[in-house]
């Protein structure tokens, strides 16, 4: 039996991450943009005392460079971006935040089952939720060979279409991330 995947929608496509790497799914809470940071990072949220960096998957997985900035592109938040971030949740009722486990809080049993998480708390900003999928290994395909990036680790064939499993660690690796500087100090 394969891992359970928590499915969600980004830019009209279906992606997923292992359920065990997800701590909680919440409606958008106010995001504090960090001026000067990369456009793919929407800012910081504070969820019951835990600060998490919000990774805007819509930017990370964008395929239209004109509207969202292409994958891997590095540019700084503009004034308009900041206004848009402040407005998240007012216009789009479907968008959600996936609060991810971090390496400190993840349960030992999940680690045993091969779930890899980032060292710090991060949250994923997505367009909307799908559901939790129980996937069969027989229906797993490798990622398409023509991809320029390594964000997608597997592609699953489901009854109603495909689901691409994302490696959040690979996405983070593409971001200009200073591991030392941003820790909120809670776990060290």
């Amino acid at each position, binding site marked *: 039996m394969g891992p359970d995947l928590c499915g969600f929608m980004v830019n009209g496509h279906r992606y997923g991450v292992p359920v065990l790497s997800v701590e*909680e*799914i919440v409606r958008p809470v106010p995001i504090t943009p960090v001026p000067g940071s990369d456009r793919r990072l929407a800012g910081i949220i504070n969820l019951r005392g835990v600060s998490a960096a919000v990774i805007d998957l819509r930017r990370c997985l964008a395929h239209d460079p004109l509207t969202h900035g292409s994958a891997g592109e590095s540019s700084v938040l503009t004034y308009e971006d900041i*206004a848009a971030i402040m407005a998240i949740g007012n216009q789009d009722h479907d968008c959600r935040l996936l609060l991810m486990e971090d390496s400190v809080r993840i349960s030992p049993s999940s680690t045993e089952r091969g779930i890899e998480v980032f060292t710090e708390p991060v949250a994923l900003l997505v367009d909307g939720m799908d559901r*939790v999928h129980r996937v069969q290994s027989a229906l797993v395909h490798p990622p398409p060979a023509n991809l320029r990036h390594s964000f997608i680790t597997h592609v699953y064939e489901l009854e109603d279409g495909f689901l691409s499993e994302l490696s959040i660690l690979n996405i983070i690796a593409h971001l200009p991330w200073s591991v030392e500087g941003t820790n909120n100090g809670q776990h060290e």
Partner: protein
Amino acid sequence: MDNMNSHIAAERPVELMVGDDIKFSIFSPVVTLEHREFYERIIGELGGIFPICNQGKCTAVEISENVTEQEQITDLMKKVETFSFQLLGVTKRLFNQFYQAKEDFCRSIFSNTSYIKINLMDRNLLERTCDVRWWSLETAFGDCLLLFNDLQLNLASLSNVGVSCSNESREEEALQFVLDVHQQGSGVLAQEDIRIKFKDALGCLCEYFGARDGGDEVDDILDKCRFAVDEIPQRIRFACDRLEDINASYTLYRDLVVTDSFGFIIANSNVDNRLSLLGVRVNQEEWFIKAMESKDGTQYAVGDLCCSVVEPSFDASLIYSAAVRENGDNLGRALGAMGIFFDFQGEAQMILDDYMPCDAEGSLLDGWYSFFTDQYGMIIGSSDMAVLPIGSYAHLPRKHRMLNPGQRINDYLVFEGVESAIFTSKTDGYLEYPGLGWNSHFVVPKSAVFNQVLDTDRSLLRPDELLNSSIIPSVNKETYIKIQDDKESIQLISLNGIVFASKLGKRGVALGPIFDQITKTGDFATSMMEKLLAEMAVGELQMNLRALENSSKQAIDLIDRNLFERAADIRWWSTDQYFWSALESPGADAFEAASKRLKVINASYTLYRNLVLADGNGDIVACSRLEMRNELSKLNVSDHEWFQSGMRTTNSHEYAVQDVVDSPLERTKNRSLIYVGGVRRGGAREGEAMGVLGIMFDWDTEAKIILRTCLPSAHDGSPIIGAAAFYTNKDGRIIETTDPENFPVGSMASLPSEHRSLQKGESASGLLVQTGTRYLIGSSRTQGYREYEGLDWCAHIVRPVDAASDSHVEY
């Protein structure tokens, strides 16, 4: 993770439905069976969630000994319970709103219809007050009355004459008869048989006094009397002719009569009863008394419906009256009275039968009634004589009989055994006409309010589009958002529950089906509610379309009725003596006199910009705007359409009108609407036209006023931003508008094909896209009014679909 589950609840405090006034409970008899079933299913499904949650709480104890984990699961279940409970409340509210929306809308439509009816009547009656004042100054009537007046004076001087011989009883009798006539009033001589007797008596007296000496003075008086009596038939004939002319132009009257100051009818327009009517005395009738009491030519009198000897076959006559004055002068001595008998029943019937739904065979549907009552609540006009006979009192709640002017109320009641809604409006008059305190009542079956069959084929907009549009009242939008929100919350709890359960590994498997079931139930209940909301939105849309159709019908009716009056005016004026005599014997003086006459007319009828008289060659010879005479006299209009069609008329019943054009007659105006009538030799009713009289209706002003009255308003009566009204002519070109920016005059409206191909009197509604904005549109094509056929115009009323201030934030 300790406080993870408290997060959502803390962020969204539980909203209790306290203080929500639920008017339409699911047990209200107006709620349809289908909806009750719908409700049962939603409640059933949601009710099923509570045992599932209990089961979840039990499972928590089963699968985990860890108290924290147990609490987390129990918390999740509690939250699901809370949201389910809220959804139950929302469901009730939703049904309430659903029926409230229907009620609100029907109320605004039907209440408006009831008001439109009385308002149409008032507008019509206002025109009648102008008519009577204007006509009573016609010189033909004054001339006729003067004759009777002089006769009366001469007879007075005969009263001291005595006949002294004992064997002269024949002469005595004759003198007595003559004095009797004087006693009654000379107007009695309008009766032919009395006149003949009177003439004989005069003849007898002449012989008697002629044979005696010293009777010269008496002889002289008798001669004058004989001359006057001989003159009477001719004068009466002439006065009657003029009345007939008027009635031929203005077909709204059953009869028009002129009386002398004693109240004797000396002329009428209705040939059929003329013989029996002339010489009849009406001095006891209120209309006559009031007219004689009027101080000058600007005053008129109108009483409530009453009986009159003039119309013995009618129980109720509506009579307008004014004094006939010497020399047609406003301030002249009152010589008699003019009474005009408005065809109230006919007019009321026309108005009452309008806006009533018919079945396939064209007969009115049962349970729908429209009727007028007078200030005492007596029925004076009715759409159903068998159920609501005129002269009886309808069984109305007290407050529907005691309204203030302009007030509108509605109630539910059982009417003729049917659960009905009644909408009552009291007249508030129109302009300077105060109205007679009448009420308009409109009764519709209650089922028509609540059980409309929705025409789902006519889905012009998707339900979700509709729910976000400006058409749906915000309270319903809030419910929509609340339902969406609760649905999302339940989904989110289920999803987090599943995430949570999978972390419990094998122990969590037992929780999986519970969360699956919660998701399913939540989805089912909310999708049912969304369906209901969609139905509500479609209903609201259809009501809107209907309201727009009604408004457009009102707009075209009002202009038709207005233009009917114009058609009547032109027919009447073109028979005026000043005009035909000016054309018969042309000359500077005659033209001057004609111009002055036009000016007098124009002063009374301010809705004309100018009146012009053109001779047979198309030269303008006179006009009411004296300052324009020089300019217009250089103009030849022989190639103008209005002139040519006016010249083609062959009798005084005909008139012509040119659709709105840019005319050189009015260089300062872009649009002129010209009515034209033929002027005939000697004012004859038939024959070739010698020239034409043209009247320039103040189209822009009048049309704009009417269009503005017909603009739609929201439930609460506030104006709708972006709504517009406009008229198109037969080619579909806009001829007048309230929104020159989006629907400019002269442009073609991009109407849906159904609206372009409307037949006479038909209405349609639909979706219109103009300059990138989507509008709901209601259109009606003219149905004409009485013998006025209309110009094949359409009225259109539009309201924008999308809210004007809708800004999008780009990510």
